[in-house]
C-alpha cells in the first residue's frame, strides 16, 4: 500500500505540490490525471526518492520513505519499477541490452533464462526482431515500448508509469493498455499511471485522481470521475477551453 500525506514540494519558491493526500491500496491501479506541468511527474519523482519533499510523508508498505537514505532507500526501490516519460533508455545499449540490464544487474539469472525472458518481454510489446536496434534508430513509440518491457521484466511490486502511451497510435495505445492490464492481472502489482489519454485510461484504472495546482481536487472510481459534478474535472474531461481551469498561456493566445 502507498500512502501520501500532506506532500509539499517547491522549486525556487514556486510551489509545485501543495499538500497531496493520496492512498493507493495494494494491487490497485491509480490513474493520476491533470494539466501538463501540474506536478504529476514531480509527484512520481518524490515516490521514487529522486526528489525529496519539503514537507509530508510517503509511506510504502508501512515505511516512510522520505526519511530513508542510501541502502535503506535502495531496498524500497527494489520493489519499484518506473517507466519514465521519455523512456530513459540507455542510448549506448541496444533494445535487448536495455531490457536485459535490470535483470543482469539485480538478479542472478542464467544466460538462457535471460535470453528467454528478454525475448518474451520484447515480443509482448510487439518488438520481436528489434533486439539489435539502438534507441536512436527507433521511433518514439518503439522506445516507449522497450522502456515498458524493461520496467516490467523484473516483475516489480509497485509500478509507476509516467505517460506510458504518449506518442503511440490508437492501436498501440490500446495494446499497451491491454499489456499493462494483463501484467497487472498476472503479477498483481500496485500501479500509479500518469496519463492524458482520456477516456482510455479509465479502462485500466481502479481509481482516478485529478491533480490541479499541486492538490488532488477529486478522487474516485472511473465512473465517479466520469459523472463528477466538479466543474474543473468536467472541463478537463471535455477538453473545453472555457471554465475554471486556467489556461497556461492566455496572454499568448490573445496575441
Amino acid at each position, binding site marked *: 500500500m502507498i500512502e501520501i500525506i500532506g506532500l509539499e514540494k517547491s522549486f525556487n519558491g514556486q510551489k509545485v505540490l501543495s499538500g497531496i493526500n493520496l492512498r493507493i491500496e495494494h494491487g490497485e491501479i491509480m490513474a493520476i490525471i491533470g494539466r501538463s506541468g501540474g506536478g504529476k511527474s514531480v509527484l512520481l*519523482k518524490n515516490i*521514487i*526518492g*529522486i526528489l525529496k519533499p519539503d514537507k509530508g510523508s510517503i509511506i510504502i508498505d508501512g515505511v516512510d520513505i522520505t526519511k530513508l537514505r542510501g541502502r535503506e532507500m*535502495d*531496498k524500497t*526501490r*527494489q520493489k*519499484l*519499477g*518506473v517507466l*519514465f*516519460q*521519455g523512456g*530513459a*533508455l*540507455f*542510448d549506448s545499449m541496444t533494445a535487448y541490452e536495455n531490457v536485459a*540490464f*535490470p535483470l543482469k*544487474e*539485480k538478479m542472478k539469472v542464467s544466460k538462457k533464462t535471460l535470453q528467454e525472458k528478454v525475448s518474451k518481454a520484447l515480443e509482448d510489446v510487439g518488438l520481436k526482431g528489434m533486439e539489435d536496434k539502438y534507441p536512436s534508430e527507433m521511433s518514439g513509440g518503439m522506445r516507449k515500448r522497450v522502456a515498458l518491457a524493461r520496467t516490467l521484466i523484473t516483475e516489480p511490486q509497485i509500478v509507476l508509469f509516467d505517460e506510458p502511451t504518449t506518442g503511440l497510435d490508437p492501436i498501440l495505445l490500446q495494446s499497451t493498455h491491454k499489456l499493462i492490464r494483463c501484467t497487472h492481472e498476472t503479477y498483481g502489482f500496485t500501479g500509479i499511471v500518469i496519463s492524458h489519454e482520456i477516456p482510455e485510461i479509465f479502462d485500466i484504472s481502479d481509481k482516478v485522481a485529478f491533480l490541479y495546482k499541486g492538490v488532488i481536487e477529486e478522487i474516485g472510481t472511473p465512473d465517479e470521475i466520469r459523472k463528477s459534478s466538479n466543474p474543473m474535472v468536467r472541463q478537463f474531461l471535455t477538453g473545453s477551453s472555457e471554465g475554471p481551469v486556467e489556461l497556461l498561456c492566455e496572454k499568448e493566445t490573445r496575441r
Partner: protein
Amino acid sequence: MLRILGGRALSLFKKMGHMLMFLLNSIYYICVPPFKFRLLLKQIRFFGNKSMIVILLTGSFTGMVMALQIYHTLSKFGSEALLGPAVALSLIRELGPVLSALMVTGRAGSALTAEIGIMRISEQIDALVSMALNPMRYLIVPNIVAAIIVFPLLAAIFDVIGIYGGYVIAVKLLGLSEGTYFSQIDTFVEWKDVRIGLYKSISFGVIVSWISCYKGYFTEETGFGAEGVSRATTDAVVMSSVLILIWDYFLGSVLL
C-alpha cells in the same frame, strides 16, 4: 556591496564543498565492492586507446621543438652535450604529465562531461536510481579509476616519444652524436624524476575525471537542456586545465 561579495563567497565555498563531497563519495565507492571491472576496461579504452594518436603527435612535436630551442640556448654556452638530459628532464618531470593531461582533457574529459550530462537530462541517471543501482558505481568510479591507470601510461608514452622526437632533431638535424644524447640522459635522469612525473600524472588523472564527471553529473547547475550540457562541457575543460596548471605548480614546489 559587501553583502553581494559575501553572498558570492559563500556560494563559492558551498560549491567547492559540494565538489569535494562528490570526490570523497567517489573514493568511498572506489574502496567498497562490488566493482564493475567490465565498465573499468571500457573506460580504460575510452581514455587510453582513443587518446593515443593525439599523445603520439603532441609528444613527438613537443620533443622536437624543445630540442631545437634548447640546442640554440645551450650552444651559446658550449654545452650542447646536455641537450639530451635537458629535453628528457623537462619532459619527464613537467611537460609529459602536464601536456598529456591537457590533451586528454580536451579529447576525453569533454566527451565524458557531455556523455554524463546527456544521461542526466534524458533521465538515464534517474532510471539507474529507480532500479536501485548506484550511478556513482556505474558512471563515476570506473572513470576515476581508469584515469588513475591511464594518465601515467599516456604521460610515459608522451615522454618516450618526446625524447625520440628530440633525438631526431638533435642527432639527424643538428649533428649531435647519438651516444652523447642518450648517455647524458642516462647520467642525469634519476628515478626520483620519474616518480615526480608519475605522482603528477596520477593526480592529474583524478582532477580531470573528477571535474569532468562532476560537471556532467550536475549539468543542471550550469543550465538546462542541450545548452546546459554545452556549458558544462566548456566549464569542465576550462576548470580541469586551470586546476592542472595550478596543482602542477604546488606539487612541483613540494616535490622538488
